[in-house]
Structure formats: C-alpha cells, structure tokens
C-alpha cells in the first residue's frame, strides 16, 4: 500500500513537472491578433495612487470592475498611496509598456508634483498613456459657518491667519497658498493634517480659519455642519453649487493671478485620471480608450460613479483630449513653478 502511494506520488510529480516545463518553454499556440484577444485571460495590475476609502479610490474600483468586464482580464487592484500617491504614479510610469499596468491618480496632486519638481517624482506627465478622466471637481475655500471670517473683507482684515494643509506639496496646501496670494492675506498654511476630518475639526476648534478642498472630499464635513464653502477657486461658479460665488466675483485680479486661477480650473482640478504606463502599443491604447468611452454611455457605470461621488457627475474627458490638455499644462509649467515655489517659501509654516 505504501509502495503504491509512493509510486503514485512520483508519477504525479513527474507529470506536474512536464506540464510546468511545457507551459514555461513553449510559445503560445497563436499570437493574439487584436487588442481584444490580447487582454482575454491576462492579468492587469491596477495601481490606485489614493488611500483606501477616498472618493477617488471608490471611483478607481468601479473603473477596475468595468475594465475587467470589458477586457476579459483579471484586474488586481492595489492601493499604492505611499508618499502622497507618488508610489502609485512612479509605479505605473516605470512599468513595462505592454498595457497590463494601469492605474488611477488624482489630477491635482499628479500635476502638482510636476509643478513643484518634487525630486521623488520620477515621471514626466506628458509621457503617460491616458485612458479617461472622470469628473472635474473645483476647489473651494471652506470656513467655519459660525466663525468670525464670513467674507473676503473679514479675511483681509485678519492678522496671522492659519489655513490648513495636508501634505506639504499637496493640492490642499497649494490651494491655501493660492488663496493667500490672490486675497493678499496675512496668513500661513499649516501642513501636516492627516485627514479631512482632522482639518474640519481644527476649523471647528478655531485652530484654523479654513482650507481649500474639492467638494466630494469635504462633503461629510459640510453635512456635519463643521465647514461651509465661501467661494470657488475658479473663474466661474460650479454648477454643483450655483449659490457659491467664484473668487473672481469677489476680488479683482491681475492677469498673472487670473492665469493662476485658470490653472485651478484646468490642470489642478479634482479629477480621477485613468492612466497606463508610457509607450504602450497604439492599438491597445485605442482599444482601452474606446472601452472607456463606452462606459461614459453606460447608465449603470454612471450611476455607480454618481453614487460614490454623491452627485450627478457630468464631466468625462476622453483619453485623447486629456493627453492634449497635459501637453498644454507642461508647456506652461515653468511660469507656475516659479510662483508656487515663491509662495511656499513665503507662506508655508
């Protein structure tokens, strides 16, 4: 009996070895002829450069689920949010150009790293393969609903004001610095607040007077009555909140300042960008972009995006348009780089 078991084990082992060698050594029977064939049965490594539970993380998971259904590939989602999302951005940038490594990034942080030439960011934004951009969330300036600063005049009259920031090079910090410059405030941005709720509570305690953030991420704090939007950091009102004025309605700005506000309406918006590694084959990129365009027509997909965003998302930008927009942004980077570096030196605590 024992001999039989031994023989069985040896035979099974040899057979397994043969199968493994055959699978590893033999080329595929047929090379895939179309991108659709290429993706079937493959595994897509999907890096989310956002912390779990954020709005962008949930949107990413919806994208990943539809990506899997549309390609027939298994999509493995992983949060790579280290160093403020740099981990995920660098990861996708350095991946092989085969279209099997994709991910999502938050637009403002993604562009902000390039604006500030963060030495830890190894990527060049114009080189990524862009698939789709979802939503276009403007940044608002939030204050306490019952605090002493209820208007721009109140803010301008204040002394040694403290605005909240997150990461020292993040969009919340850059937004605060922009507000200080545009309104000419006697203020500083204090970075290091770990989460939105910590910042909102600091406003409630009057440790901070306010901060800049997009509406989906501030929604819970707004609904809890801890903060309210004072203005939108854009040249026009946001259709999401028609009662909240744009900053340009409240102060007159120089041409340079207006260009800065426009940057917050274009590249530094709160969008979730779906990207793939640079240089993937053209036909695969076109296939992925067509797939993504199809999602925007799919009511189920849009309903899921609306559910996690908390409102009806209107803005979907195609991969081609997004790639062009990123080239434009890169062309103007030098001007903004100097402005933000000066602002950081002057006003970041």
């Amino acid at each position, binding site marked *: 009996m024992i001999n039989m078991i031994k023989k069985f084990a040896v035979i099974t082992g040899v057979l397994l070895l043969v199968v493994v060698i055959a699978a590893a050594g033999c080329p595929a029977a047929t090379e895939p002829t179309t991108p659709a064939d290429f993706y079937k049965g493959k595994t897509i490594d999907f890096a989310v450069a956002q912390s779990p*539970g954020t709005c962008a*993380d*949930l949107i990413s998971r919806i994208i990943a689920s539809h990506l899997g259904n549309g390609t027939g590939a298994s999509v493995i989602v992983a949060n790579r949010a280290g160093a403020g999302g740099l981990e995920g951005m660098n990861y996708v940038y350095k991946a092989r150009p085969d279209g099997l490594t994709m991910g999502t990034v938050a637009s403002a942080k993604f562009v902000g790293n390039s604006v500030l030439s963060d030495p830890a960011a190894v990527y060049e934004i114009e080189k990524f393969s862009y698939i789709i951009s979802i939503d276009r969330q403007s940044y608002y300036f939030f204050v306490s609903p019952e605090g002493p600063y209820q208007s721009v005049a109140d803010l301008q009259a204040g002394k040694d004001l403290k605005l909240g920031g997150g990461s020292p090079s993040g969009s919340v910090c850059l937004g605060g610095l922009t507000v200080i410059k545009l309104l000419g405030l006697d203020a500083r941005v204090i970075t*290091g607040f770990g*989460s939105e*709720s910590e910042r909102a509570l600091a406003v409630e305690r009057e440790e901070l007077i306010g901060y800049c953030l997009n509406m989906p991420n501030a929604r*819970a704090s707004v609904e*809890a009555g801890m903060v309210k939007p004072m203005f939108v950091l854009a040249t026009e009102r946001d259709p999401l909140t028609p009662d909240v004025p744009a900053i340009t309605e409240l102060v007159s700005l120089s041409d340079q300042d207006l260009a800065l506000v426009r940057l917050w309406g274009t590249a530094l918006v709160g969008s979730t960008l779906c990207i793939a590694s640079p240089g993937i084959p053209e036909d695969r990129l076109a296939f992925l972009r067509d797939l993504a365009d199809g999602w925007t027509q799919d009511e189920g997909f849009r309903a899921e995006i609306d559910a996690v965003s908390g409102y009806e998302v209107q803005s979907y930008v195609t991969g081609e348009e997004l790639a062009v927009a990123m080239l434009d942004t890169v062309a103007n980077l030098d001007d903004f780089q100097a402005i933000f570096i000066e602002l950081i030196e002057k006003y970041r605590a």
Partner: protein
Amino acid sequence: MLEAYGTAIATLFQPINLLILFAAVIVGLIVGVIPAIGGLATLPLILPFIFRMPVEIALILIVGFHAVIFTSSGMTSILLNIPGTAPSAATMVDGFPMTRKGEGGRAIGAAVTSSMAGGVLPVFLALAMVPLVLPLIIALGQPEMAILILLGISFLAALTGGSAIKGLMAGMLGLLLSFIGYHTITGVHRFDFGAAALYDGIELIPLALGLFGLSELFYLIMKGETAIAQRAIAKLSGVMEGVKDVWRHRWLWFRSTIIGYVIGIIPGIGAEVATWVCYGQAKQTSKHPEKFGKGAVEGVIAPEAADNAKEAGAMLTTMALGIPGSSVMALFLAAFLMVGVTPGPAMMVEHLPLALTLLLGIALANIVGGVICLLAAPQLARVASVHFDFLFPGILIVAMIGVYVATLSPMNFATVLIFGIVGLVMKLYGYSRPALLLGFVLGGLFERYSLLSIKIYGPLFFLRPIPLAMLIVMALLLSYPYLKRGITSLRGRYSQP
C-alpha cells in the same frame, strides 16, 4: 424610541440578516487571525459587492465583519508572539509568556472575553454618549493630543524590563526609527537614503512581526526547544479560567474599556495608543507590577478590552457624527455613502431604526464572535505544542503572505528578517522589545501633534488649561507607585507603638 428599538430588533433578527451577520463574523474572525491583515486591507475588497445590496444587508455585512476583527486578532499575539493587527501587539507582552507557561487557553479565554465585553459595552454607552462626543472631540485639540500621546510614551518606563537604562535605550531607538521617511509637516525626506521603499518610513506590521514573532522562534530554536510550550492546556476549563479572570479584574476591564472607547472616538489618534496606554495603566495600578511581562493576565485583559472598545468608539463616532477617525473608518463612511445613507447627526434622527439596528448588530457580532472564539480556543491553544519542524515554516509562510498582502512591498520581507535578527539580539542582551515598539508607534504621532501645536499655539502650548491638567494627572499617575510606597512606609512608621 421604544418603537425604533422594536423595529431595529425585528430587522436584525430577520433570518437573512442574521445569516449575513453570522457569515460576516466568520470572515471577520478569519481576517483578524491572519497575521498582518486587518480591516484596511480587506474592507476595500468587500465594498464593490455592496453597491446593489439592500441597505440593511450591506451595512450589517460591513458592521458585523469589522466588529470582530479585533476579537480574534489577539490570538496570534498570545499563541505565536505575532500580532494579528497592529494594536494587538500590546497583548504579546504578557500573552505569549502565558502560552510558554502552558496557559495559552487561559490567556485566550481572558483576551476573548475582555475583547467581546469591551466591544459590547460601548454600544450601550453609545446613545447616552452621542451628545457628549462632539464637545469632547472639540475640546481635544492638537496640544491635548500631543500630551495624550506623551502619556503613552511615558509608559516606556513601565516596559523597560530588567534594566531601566537598556529599556530607555530601546525606546529611544524606536523613536529614531519612527522618524524615517517623508516628514508630513515639512516635506523633508529623512533617513531614507533615496530609497523609494522608505519614503513612508518603516511599516509597523513587518517590524512587529520580525521583532517579536521571528526573533522568538529563532531564540527558541537556538535554545534547542522543540515547541513554544511543552504542555499546552487544551481544555475548556483552562479557557474558562481566563473568562473568570476578567470577572476577577472587572474594574481593570471597565477602566480599559472606557479609556479605549474615549481614545477611539478621537479622530486621528492611533489605535495603538489605546492598547499601550491601557497596558501601561494596568501595570501602574497593579498590586503586582513585577509580574508584568512574565505572563500576568491583567496584561492581556487591559489591551484586549481597549482594542475592541476603541474600534466600537470609532465606529460610533463615524456613524453618529460623520467624522471618520482613521483610514478604516473612512472606508466605513464610504460604505454608508455608497448605499445612500449619510452618517451624521441627521442619521441618528432620520434613520434611527437603522442606526439602532447597526448598533445592536455590533453588539450581537461581538457576542457571536466571542462565543465562537471561546469554543475554538481549546483547539487553537494546541498550536503552541506543535513541533517547530512543522510550525516554523507554516508561520513563516502565512506571516510573509500576510505582510505582502497588507503592504504590497517585497522590501518588507527584508524588514521582517532584519528586525527578526534585531529582536533576537535584543532578547539575548536584555533590551526591552516592547519599549522599542512603543517608541516606534508613538514617536511619529507625538512629533506630528507637538509640531502642529507649536505652529498653531507657539512653544508654550502645554500651558493651556487642559494640557496642563493632563500633565499634572500624568505626573501623579507616574509617581503613584512611589507615593503609595511612601504613604505605606509612613503609616508603618507612625502605627508602631
């Protein structure tokens, strides 16, 4: 109100909801017991499935799953010296020595009972506490947080083991290690030598796994032992002894539950703070502090009560105020929003029956989870007597898989190995490993809150009324054993004829 309770009970006890809760509890217990994997790694996997579920089922699933993760996570700390989740690391200090003495079943009994009861009590406190939660959170600003964490760090003194100097050196090493990585206030990259893997510093779980789990196995093998415990009491009576221990130390349990709950409702304060603060106060107030670190059951009861109470507190704050206090709670909040329910004060009014269903769901999940763990404990305790030839590779594979799934960084394999060797050297030369871990856990938090306090209130931030009062309480607490000794000695002197 009574009507809302009736509706909540009727909803919770519908067969389908009970079934979902039971399934969620089982999965939560398994997740808790696998080293390194906690709610943060697993909740994102569940979220996509709840989109089209009915609201009650979706939320009962999430609540039931998360409520019990910390009930089972103490088991690996006790049996293998490997923390199931980061906060349960404090349980190792006395839990593992109990296992070595053949009291693994008793330790599990105490841990599970303390944890289960620690998860249930806050639910019943919740409704009474809701009006007090927001004022409490508002009162605790950056300076108060800094002092609270300093209180935790001051318990280094309680963890120094044999030599105070060596203990403090280990604690300082932990503090230094916590400073590695991207500085979130200044944006400076510190001590990372340009290595991307160190941008966010050293991860807690691989460090704890190496420092305690791996080094302990190395040590036992070096000593020529063949199993963690030569005799593992695998009887229900051993487990029941642990259950009775919780009753014997009920005031310690109650104190730890309240401390854990209060720390849990404060957003931004690390979950690990609760367990270490409770461990420290258990030792400070014990009649036999010398037994701590050598297998004192109070050292298991206190952190385990705090662990679950803290999580219950965080969940209740998220539901009642819409303020998520941690990444896991942000996921929790997202789950609510995904099914169309906005947590916050309005939820406690507009969706009161749903809120009560979830609160009762947390309590029921804790009870079900606790009973399952207690029943399984005698069998689980046998792990301690498994021969190292089988146990060592098994632990190594499961722990490494857990580390990889939780952190997605192959570099962390190296972290486990390096700290395995560091831990072995520390153990051989009598340096306190818990002190290193405490310094590491709290160092970064203290630095962040103290720097924020200085930037907001100036360098004399600690002279504000609440921080000052907290400092005085801390001084009293730390000097309590000496004061007690002094008073006893004085009494003795004057009572002599």
